[in-house]
């Protein structure tokens, strides 16, 4: 609401920027001699206010909208007041919480201790976080993949067009920087992404970060070389099928482990040797699945935004 005013010239930051570049002197006109009885500041502020009011008048023109305007103002005031209240509440709360970095804080309890102490033998993952999200609390993580999935469905629903037309206006231009840089960078980015995914259980990273890195690699490739070339290996059908395959594998693998866990059955999945690439039971496969889903989703977001199709 506060930013409806397009009168940017008079705003503080604009003046600050102009002052930096030497176009504007805030002291100008302040130190000159004034004729007695002339108000120097008044008209400016009043004029500005009038301007704002006039603008509001033009938006809320008819008589019927008068109520609406009062309601909008009331809404703004109430929201700001609530915001201040919330800030104070949260700050008071924070001031009562344990000190930053305290080892005896309530959250460092038996739950976290077991994840650390037993994690290696129970999950086989060297990265405790990966072991936690993909084994101890796997249901959350499956839900999270579903969030990505449903968001990509929604985006597709919104932006899908019957005939995806490549925007001629924004086709890649041949530049001296973009194509050569992309030719060198894209393989490096994608290989780094694959490295991050495959080492998700050994070092920092995992399916989500690696998948996002690969996705940005695809996006860079598309920006440099256009949809025709990208479409050769990333067609809509391919993306759909591979996403469904990865998510189904994830679904089945986790269902198996939930089912055996809840019914106290013996599971065939073993942690393996810690530190090896093919260790940590299902974690490495799940990381690969999540990576595929995330990379495809990120690229499909981009493609849907650009031309209304995958």
């Amino acid at each position: 609401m506060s930013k409806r005013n397009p009168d940017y010239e008079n705003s503080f930051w604009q003046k600050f920027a102009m002052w930096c570049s030497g176009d504007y002197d805030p002291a100008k006109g302040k130190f000159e001699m004034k004729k007695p009885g002339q108000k120097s500041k008044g008209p400016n502020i009043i004029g500005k206010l009038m301007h704002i009011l006039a603008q509001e008048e033009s938006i809320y023109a008819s008589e019927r909208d008068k109520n609406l305007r009062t309601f909008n103002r009331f809404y703004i005031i109430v929201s700001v007041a609530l915001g201040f209240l919330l800030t104070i509440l949260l700050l008071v709360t924070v001031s009562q919480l344990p000190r930053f970095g305290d080892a005896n804080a309530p959250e460092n309890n038996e739950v976290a201790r077991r994840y650390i102490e037993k994690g290696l033998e129970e999950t086989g993952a060297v990265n405790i976080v990966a072991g936690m999200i993909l084994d101890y609390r796997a249901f959350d993580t499956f839900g999270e993949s579903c969030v990505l999935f449903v968001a990509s469905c929604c985006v597709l629903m919104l932006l899908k067009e019957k005939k995806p037309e490549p925007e001629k206006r924004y086709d890649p231009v041949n530049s001296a920087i973009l194509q050569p840089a992309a030719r060198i960078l894209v393989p490096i980015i994608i290989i780094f992404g694959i490295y991050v995914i495959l080492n998700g259980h050994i070092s920092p990273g995992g399916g989500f970060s690696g998948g996002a890195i690969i996705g940005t690699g695809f996006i860079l490739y598309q920006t440099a070389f256009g949809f025709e070339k990208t479409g050769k290996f990333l067609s809509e059908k391919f993306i759909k099928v591979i996403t469904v395959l990865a998510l189904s594998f994830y679904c089945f693998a986790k269902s198996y482990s939930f089912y055996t866990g809840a019914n106290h059955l013996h599971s065939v999945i073993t942690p393996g040797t810690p530190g090896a690439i093919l260790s940590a039971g299902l974690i490495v496969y799940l990381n690969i699945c999540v990576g595929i889903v995330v990379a495809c989703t990120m690229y499909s977001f981009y493609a849907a935004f650009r031309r209304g199709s995958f």
Partner: protein
Amino acid sequence: MVSTFFTNYEEVASCILFVIGMMNLLLQPNLIKKIIGLDIMDCSVYLFLAAKGYIEGRHAPIYVDGVTDAVNYINPVPSGLVLTGIVVSVSVSALMMALTINLYREYSTLNLDEIMMKLRQEETEKLGRLTYGAVEDEE
């Protein structure tokens, strides 16, 4: 009471950021800024969680040389929660961006207030025609 106020910088900053983000989401008429406000709001909560997980003098939750003693590593739970949360927030903001594009195509403005006013004018113009499929027919 104010004892920890001056040591918990991260938490204090995250509270301030949360309110800034929320106010942006509520009061900015511009949709793109609303989305950025949303991302800032989510990020601030994650900063809070990450700060809660930190323990002074301990290392990242990755086993070094097979040492599995709990006094060596920080709390891994907040990291896991934040990892999940980051992905949730990116998908929500992608959805909001798609909605923004469609709204712009429909009303050619990014200002939500202006869109509301346009809608109201549309309604006033065809007050007599309260029909379910009216808008579709015109397209």
